[in-house]
């Protein structure tokens, strides 16, 4: 498992994400501070050169022209500082979660991350949105992923592989803002938790589909908190963000648990992480492991004081024993679900491919082609700026239609993968719910635990540890 980060880096290089040319181009502030779709033309002419060619007018009134991008492009050095801050924050978070085991220190780190990565950096670059840059760079070789964006994508993954979800604990500004507003947590029933989490997989699949086809970066477009970080935004997004925050007052981190596509990846990596959060200090406490003070098998004293301490429903109780009848029924169910798994994946994949009528419209070319067609057919009143600009180019509409048809074909194929992915995940989830998991202690679920550290102080063993440290 320790080789996994290296494997990721190697695969990344092999896929051509970081070629020398890409790195050179990606060092432009244009790319590093703009994890949104860039046009090929934009990449061919760096903004510095563009500024020289088209110098902006100077105003005698003292008016300062606003930056055309939000947030404004960062100079190279500051981008690397951002990456270093991220690296440091992840390291500190891992230390605070696994060694120091201090909820208040994690909380302080979360506040810092919110202020720095959220309000100061205006939520950009963010690791969650970086998924799309990576996907686009895989499917569109003309798109160069900025090296800082790559760092924002990879660093949390690498840290998760070693230390669990320490990124979610105190580094992610999206998680931090929800954590800060959590006042009166209401427990979401266990049975509902898994079903709601399915949405995050759907969202991840959709984000990959739209990024791969060069249509849209929906994670950025529908980021509910970015308008707060920038103290400005579209009314609809502000309303969405406000609603999510309102829910967050009562439901712990709803975006992280049920929506975040990056969280879906982190969940899987956290399952296999080298070290992870434990409610009771001991067996897996790195400090103890390093010092050779391994705990005994009965670290958890089954006091059950922690069972309601997690507002995110990440603490798993010991499992009850299965009877013979339970095993019999469970085996049959499991066999049936395993047989049905490919059927489910294929059928949902087919449904996904049928969605191309709608999904393809996320692509600007398809939207333009349909608009032009409707205008020409007299089925749409007036024109749009896009259709007018297209007509001014003199490009034949047949060519536009052909391009749009090609993109639709991509969405047909992409829809198969997207639907298949959703079907597969749903099937695996059903299988997961049908198999027996042997658990004797109260444990933090490796996948779901956000490493917030709330449960530490509920454990009598933790109090004993702290007392021992003090003594």
């Amino acid at each position, binding site marked *: 498992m320790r080789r996994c980060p290296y494997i990721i880096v190697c695969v990344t290089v092999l896929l051509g994400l970081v070629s020398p040319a890409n790195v050179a181009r990606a060092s432009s502030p244009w790319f590093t501070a703009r994890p949104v779709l860039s046009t090929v033309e934009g990449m061919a002419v760096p903004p510095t050169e563009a500024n020289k060619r088209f110098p902006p007018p100077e105003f005698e009134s003292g008016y300062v022209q606003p930056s055309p991008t939000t947030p404004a492009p960062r100079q190279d050095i500051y981008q690397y500082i951002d990456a270093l801050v991220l690296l440091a924050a992840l390291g500190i978070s891992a230390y605070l979660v696994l060694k120091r085991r201090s909820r208040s220190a994690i909380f302080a780190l979360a506040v810092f991350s919110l202020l720095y990565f959220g309000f100061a950096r205006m939520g950009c670059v963010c690791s969650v949105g970086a998924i799309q840059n990576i996907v686009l760079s895989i499917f569109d070789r003309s798109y160069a992923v900025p090296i800082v964006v790559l760092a924002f994508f990879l660093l949390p993954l690498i840290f998760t592989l070693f230390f669990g979800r320490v990124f979610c604990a105190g580094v992610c500004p999206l998680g931090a803002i929800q954590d800060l507003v959590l006042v009166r947590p209401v427990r979401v029933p266990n049975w509902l938790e898994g079903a709601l989490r399915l949405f995050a997989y759907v969202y991840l699949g959709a984000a990959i589909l739209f990024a791969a086809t060069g249509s849209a970066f929906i994670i950025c477009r529908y980021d509910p908190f970015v308008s707060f970080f920038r103290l400005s935004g579209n009314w609809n997004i502000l309303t969405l963000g406000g609603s999510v925050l309102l829910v967050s007052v009562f439901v712990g981190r709803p975006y992280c648990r049920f929506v975040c596509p990056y969280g879906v990846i982190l969940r899987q990596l956290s399952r296999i992480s080298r070290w992870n959060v434990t409610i009771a200090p001991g067996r897996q406490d790195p400090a103890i492991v390093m010092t050779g003070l391994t705990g005994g098998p009965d670290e958890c004293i089954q006091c059950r004081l922690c069972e309601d301490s997690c507002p995110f429903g990440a603490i798993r109780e010991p499992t009850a024993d299965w009877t013979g009848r339970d095993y019999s029924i469970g085996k049959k169910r499991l066999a049936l679900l395993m047989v049905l798994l490919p059927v489910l994946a294929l059928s949902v994949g087919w449904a996904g491919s049928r969605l191309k009528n709608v999904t393809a419209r996320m692509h600007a070319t398809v939207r333009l082609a349909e608009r032009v067609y409707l205008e020409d057919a*007299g089925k749409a009143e007036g024109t749009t700026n896009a259709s007018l600009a297209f007509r001014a180019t003199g490009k034949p509409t*047949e060519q536009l239609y052909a391009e749009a048809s090609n993109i639709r074909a991509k969405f047909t194929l992409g829809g198969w993968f997207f639907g298949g992915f959703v079907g597969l995940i749903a099937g695996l989830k059903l299988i997961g719910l049908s198999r027996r998991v042997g658990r004797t202690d109260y444990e933090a679920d490796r996948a779901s635990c956000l490493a917030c550290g709330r449960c530490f102080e509920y454990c009598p063993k933790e109090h004993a540890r702290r007392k021992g440290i003090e003594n």
Partner: protein
Amino acid sequence: MATAMVGGAFSVIILTLIAVNHFQRAVLLPKREQKLEVLKLELRSRPNPVPTPAFAGASPAPAQAGVEGNEQLTSQIRQLDLRIRQLRIRRYDFARKGAYLLLASAVTFLIAAKCAAVFRRKLPAPQPQPDRHDRQFHDAKWARQAVTGGLVMLGGAALILALIPEIDLSASGGVPAGFASKEDVAKNWPRFRGPAGLGVSAYTNIPTNWNGKTGEGILWKTKVPLPGHNSPVVWDDRVFLSGADPNKREVYCFDALSGRTLWTGPVQSPTVPGAKPLELGEATGYAAPTVATDGRRVCAIFPTGDVACFDFAGKRLWATNLGTPDSAYGYTSSLEIYRNLLLIQYDQENVEEEKSKLIALDVSSGRIVWQTKRPVPGSWSSPIVVEVDGCPQVITCGNPWVIAYDPSDGTELWRAKCIAGDIVPSPIYAGGLVFAIEAYTKLVAIRPTGRPVRQAQGRGDITETGIAWSVEDSTPDICSPVSNGQLLYLLTTDGLLLCYQVSDGKKLWEKDLKTNFLASPSIVGDKLYLLSAEGVMFISQIGPFDKAQGRPEYKELARCELGEPCHASPAFVDGRIYIRSSTHLYCISNRRDG
């Protein structure tokens, strides 16, 4: 806790105020902006009065009043515009300050609420769990059902979305894409005086004998609802006309086989408060300009400045208003369609105000693609698009210039200063020459410059170098010329038919037909068709210009009476003639099968 409550209440109040502010910005401001647009439109539609100089002998009072009225309206627009901008900035400022206040109050609320939550936290008190087995199995069962339910919901949503019909970009429903081919244009009669406005038909099987009174040779006759002097336009099995009176403007589509009215397309003018209705004389009427079609759509223009475009099913695709043109007799220039562009020669009086222009609208959307100012006063002729050395040119006539433009972007290609007065006849291009007419006095033949000259010299005045020849004679004041490339025919309003040699302008003969003509002459094969104002078609032989046969002369072949006055020029398409009389549209054909 009290602090949290105060902070929360304050947050709710601020949030409410921000929402109200947003509502005002999103709903109320657009209403004011709409009002501003109406005022701007009104100003644009008003004529731009210039005070008449005292020595002109006219009273300056009305013009002066117009100037003051316009200034008042302009001032009103400026005030409203300023008010809108102030309100918008104020609303944005309010929202910005509100956001900061909301942030502060929300932070206060959160800190206080979290502190209160910490202070009120209860110690955990685990209860006995005797039913762990059942509970866990129950949870697992419900979780499976919830996942299945979620999947079903996703499937249902996908099904609903999949039912949304896809726009089939490969289908040719609605208006076909692209442009009509040259062959299709030549086969039809797509504009005033047919292909390229030359008055020459591609067919030779045109009837030479009919009688409107007896019905002989009349395939059908259909009443046209509203009057108009515009000419019929034909594409395949459809015939188009327009008609108007002071209150209504309409475009008509008739079935070419039966004469049945397929559809009527009303054209509305924008409502401008206080605007006076347009008053035009009967000689011009309210629908003089001929419509144009590209085989996919039909476009019409009216003296009110209304331009409208319909598809062949009669659905209005778009409509716009260019502002009422300032024209002494009323606007009469007909439309031309070149590729995706609808070309409008929009000449207006008072050349110093630079209101005359050539406008190209996108035929599919009605948006202006380009417009070029023209240094001419009002004129009544129509533009033509011809190819000169493979270079398409829009050729226009106005006092004193004949000007050619590049239809792709409106760039001027060449100009020749050679005509004066009120320009009504349209130019033609034949035998490598452009012919322009100065009413009553002069016929000019211009050798246009093609692409090579444009590239080498750019735009240029070819008055000195490009006039091939000109003759001073009794030239027409209304009817446009027609030529077969060798002979050129002019027809004056009072019936004088003149024939010239294209190559050198030598007059070969003239014939007084002793009746009045308003329709322009046309050539069909080796015959010349002249439709008199009384509705009599004079059909004569175009003599083969062969020196061996001597000097050609006027040789009348037939006279066919329609029985109704006619102002419009007929259309000649594949065995048929379409004639618009003062009240009817006639289809003349010897074939009953269509």
